[in-house]
C-alpha cells in the first residue's frame, strides 16, 4: 500500500516536471525541471531494486549532464532565445502526434503480462557486485567499446568548440 502511494506521488511529480521541461519559456527553468524528473526516476529505480542505476542516475545525469547544460546556458546569450516555440499553427500537430503515440504505447503496455513480476522476493537486486560481475564478463565488449565512444565524443566536442582555424 505504501509502495502504491509512493509510486503515484513520485510519478505525478515526474510527469509534472516533464511537462514543465517541454513547456517552460526559459531554458534554465527547463533544465531545473528536468533535474526534478531525474530525481523522481532515481526514486523509482530505487523502488525497483536498481540501486546502482539510481546512484548513477543522480551522479551522471543530475551531476554531470545537467551541470554541463547550465554551463552552456551561461555561455550563450540568453536574450535571443525566447522565440523557442514554433508557429502556433504547427504546435498542436506535434502535440496531436505525440498524444496518438502515447495512446498506442499505453494500449501496448496494458496487455496482460506474464505473472513473473509478482514474485519480487526472488528478483535480483542491482548491487555493485552483481552489476560489476556482469559488466566485466557478459558485457565486456560493449563496455570496452564505450571507451571509443567517449574518446570520439571528447575529440568531437573539442574540435567543434575550438572553432575553425
Amino acid at each position: 500500500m505504501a509502495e502504491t502511494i509512493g509510486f503515484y506521488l513520485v510519478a505525478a511529480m515526474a510527469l509534472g516536471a516533464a511537462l514543465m521541461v517541454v513547456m517552460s519559456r526559459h531554458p534554465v527553468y527547463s533544465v531545473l525541471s528536468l533535474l526534478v524528473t531525474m530525481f523522481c526516476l532515481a526514486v523509482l529505480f530505487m523502488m525497483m531494486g536498481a540501486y546502482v542505476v539510481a546512484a548513477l542516475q543522480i551522479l551522471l545525469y543530475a551531476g554531470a549532464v545537467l551541470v554541463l547544460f547550465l554551463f552552456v546556458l551561461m555561455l550563450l546569450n540568453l536574450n535571443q532565445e525566447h522565440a523557442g516555440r514554433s508557429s502556433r499553427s504547427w504546435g498542436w500537430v506535434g502535440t496531436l502526434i505525440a498524444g496518438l503515440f502515447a495512446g498506442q504505447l499505453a494500449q501496448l503496455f496494458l496487455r496482460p503480462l506474464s505473472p513473473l513480476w509478482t514474485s519480487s522476493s526472488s528478483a535480483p537486486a542491482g548491487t555493485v557486485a552483481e552489476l560489476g560481475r556482469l559488466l566485466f564478463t557478459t558485457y565486456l565488449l560493449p563496455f570496452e567499446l564505450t571507451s571509443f565512444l567517449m574518446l570520439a565524443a571528447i575529440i568531437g566536442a573539442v574540435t567543434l568548440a575550438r572553432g575553425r582555424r
Partner: protein
Amino acid sequence: MTLPLQHYLVLSGVLFAIGLAGILTRRNILFLLLSIELMFNAANLLFVAYARMWHDLGGQVIVLFIITVAAAEVTVGLAIAILMSRQLRTLNADEARSLKW
C-alpha cells in the same frame, strides 16, 4: 503485494510521449536536447522495469550504457549549440539550413 508492472510501463510511455511532443513543438536547439534527454530517461525506466520482470540484470547494465551514450550525445550536441550561436547568431533549429539543399 507489489505494484503491477503496467504502472511503470505506462509512466515510461507517457514520459517518452512528452519528450516527443517537446521535439515536435519546440524549435530551440537547447529544448530539443533536453527533450531527447527526457526520452532517454523514459527508455531507462522501461529497461529497469523489464529487468525486474524477467529477473535479469542485463537490463540494468544496458541502462549504464544508455547513460554513457546520452552523456556523449549531449557533449557533442552542446558543442554544436555553442557553435551555432557563435556563427549563425541563432539557436533556432529551423534556421540552421546550410546543409539542406
